[in-house]
């Protein structure tokens, strides 16, 4: 495996729940709770999990769009959490983000050209002509035409907008791209286009991706390694093939079995989970999953399992494997 690009250790984000006029804190949402993982250069790390498990929060913390409560984020040996504002701006040139909503993530009052040019202006890259040229090039790269530059976002379809979003992320030639559910708002046929584009760009520019999604199929398709999150914690992390073919954590197993397979002839024993996702403001003690786990043991109710390597490159946080 290549060298690490990003190393996240014991990352936490507790959102305060305030109430009343004096903003007294009455509780916490443990959106991300003690998360550690490493991203290697050139790979795609997929992160899956159900809604509200803290995927987006994690993604945003990596860019410090949300201030982490605790923990460290090392990007090329720089401690992101301690950077000053101006240092942070430099780092943001290297790390970019693609957003879920192709409608909300583009300023409706800017032309495509302005949207794409802005990262360059902000980082003081190139002269005006150079910037214009770069914009044209990038439009072609993401499969749009140069004459699209003068248009406004509302004139594009969802898939095209997502391409613009991708182009924007690529303008500063970043090393790492964090894609937060980049295809979940798109139609299936468009989704495939965008996924292919992302793959091609990765090859072309040697990008590293952190790919956040809840569609397990999509994640499997694009990721080299996959992490599964549950209630703000990583419960399993492994090579993609390994994880899908040989899931270890009971949650991962249930999750995989819940996915409907587009093949009427394929019969699979469904493993239905009971109940709903517990609230992150009041997570269960011990293993957060114990309330829905059919292999729950006494210890699960009290002791938090650590994420441990149980096979080479296969990490699981479950007492069954300790």
């Amino acid at each position, binding site marked *: 495996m290549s060298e690490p690009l990003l190393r996240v250790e014991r990352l936490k984000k507790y959102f305060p729940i305030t109430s009343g006029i004096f903003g007294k804190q009455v509780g916490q949402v443990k959106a991300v709770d003690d998360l550690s993982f490493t991203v290697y250069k050139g790979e795609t790390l997929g992160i899956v999990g159900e809604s509200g498990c803290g995927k987006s929060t994690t993604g945003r913390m990596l860019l410090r769009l949300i201030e982490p409560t605790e923990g460290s984020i090392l990007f090329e040996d720089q401690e992101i959490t301690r950077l000053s504002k101006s240092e942070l701006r430099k780092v943001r040139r290297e790390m970019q983000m693609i957003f879920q909503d192709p409608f909300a993530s583009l300023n409706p009052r800017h032309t495509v050209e302005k949207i794409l040019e802005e990262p360059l202006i902000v980082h003081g890259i190139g002269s005006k002509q150079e910037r214009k040229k770069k914009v044209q090039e990038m439009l072609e790269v993401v499969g749009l035409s140069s004459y699209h530059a003068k248009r406004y976002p509302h004139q594009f379809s969802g898939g095209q907008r997502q391409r613009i979003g991708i182009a924007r992320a690529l303008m500063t030639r970043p090393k790492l791209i964090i894609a937060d559910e980049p295809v979940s708002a798109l139609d299936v046929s468009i989704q495939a286009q965008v996924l292919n584009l992302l793959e091609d760009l990765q090859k072309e520019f040697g990008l590293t991706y952190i790919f956040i999604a809840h569609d397990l199929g999509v994640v499997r398709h694009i990721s080299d390694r996959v992490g599964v999150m549950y209630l703000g914690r990583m419960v399993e992390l492994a090579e993609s093939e390994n994880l899908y073919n040989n899931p270890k954590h009971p949650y991962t197993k249930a999750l995989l079995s819940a996915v409907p397979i*587009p093949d009427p002839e394929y019969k699979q024993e469904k493993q239905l*989970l009971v109940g709903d996702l517990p609230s992150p403001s009041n997570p269960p003690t011990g293993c957060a999953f114990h309330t829905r786990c059919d292999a729950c043991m006494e210890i699960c109710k009290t002791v938090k399992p650590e994420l441990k390597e149980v096979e080479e490159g296969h990490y699981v946080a479950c007492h069954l494997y300790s």
Partner: protein
Amino acid sequence: MNKRSILEVKKLKTSFFTDDGEIPAVDGIDLCVKEGEILGIVGESGCGKSVTSLSIMGLLPKGIGKIVGGEIWFKGENIVNASEKRMKEIRGNEIAMIFQEPMTSLNPLFTIGNQMMEAILIHNKMSKKEARDRAIEMLKLVGLPRAEEIMKEYPHQLSGGMRQRVMIAMAMVCNPSVLIADEPTTALDVTIQAQILHLMKELNQKFGTAIMMITHDLGVVAEMCQRVVVMYSGKIVEEGDVKTIFRDPKHPYTIGLIRSVPDIREKKARLYSIPGNVPKPGSIKQGCRFAARCEHAFDQCLKENPDLYEVNEFGHRVRCFLHQKGENTTNERTVITS
């Protein structure tokens, strides 16, 4: 396969009349739902799935949405022009419907009990007490724990999955013969989706309620339905038995659709993708609506609109000139037989 059909849609055309002119959202579709079956309707966003279901229910947005042609036969009665009074009797009682957004589909200001009992009392002469018992019974049936308490709770106190169960309970409360489910699980997490799908299947088997399952997830179709209708831009492009369609899709769109979905069982080297965008309804005036994105398109495709051609006698039909040639169907128009 020789069940009677209870709901039949013939040449339904529904248009929206907006500032930008007439938008033909549904453009002459034919379909039928047979007793006790689960019929899947798939298609990408905007292809007219919801509009079809709303047309059946007579719930098109007043003033802008209008059925401009076709018939809808329910148990031998054409309900396209049925009086509002008649429709009221049918809705909820004979044809029930559940919607995509469990978060917003229940009135936030009334208790679950109130809304459940209302559904019962509209169609049944019952005392309040009886209605209450029936409501609780239904809630239990859809697998909600603490049914009695939930009766007193408000929608916001329930999770998405629970609300969708309430919606189902409410839809099933009068034992309808058809249940239209418009993307009932799209907004839910996979684990919850699995629960809900399971529940619907159970109900289908237990009560023999026919379900019209609208979705854009081919996985859901494969898992739930016996028959499937594929829609594209307001038209049906392919129709048939689920197994047939997945094993041997005929329409280039269906083929593309199935091939472009990543599978969790194995990693494909590269995803197949249909080029281009989903057209806005009404933007293609001439020829096959899929022609512009179709690899196999030839001259005729750009000029004429293909009919739905029968591929085999088991109801596999496809709207593509390729199969007009392959099959030597004689006539221009295929009559849908039930």
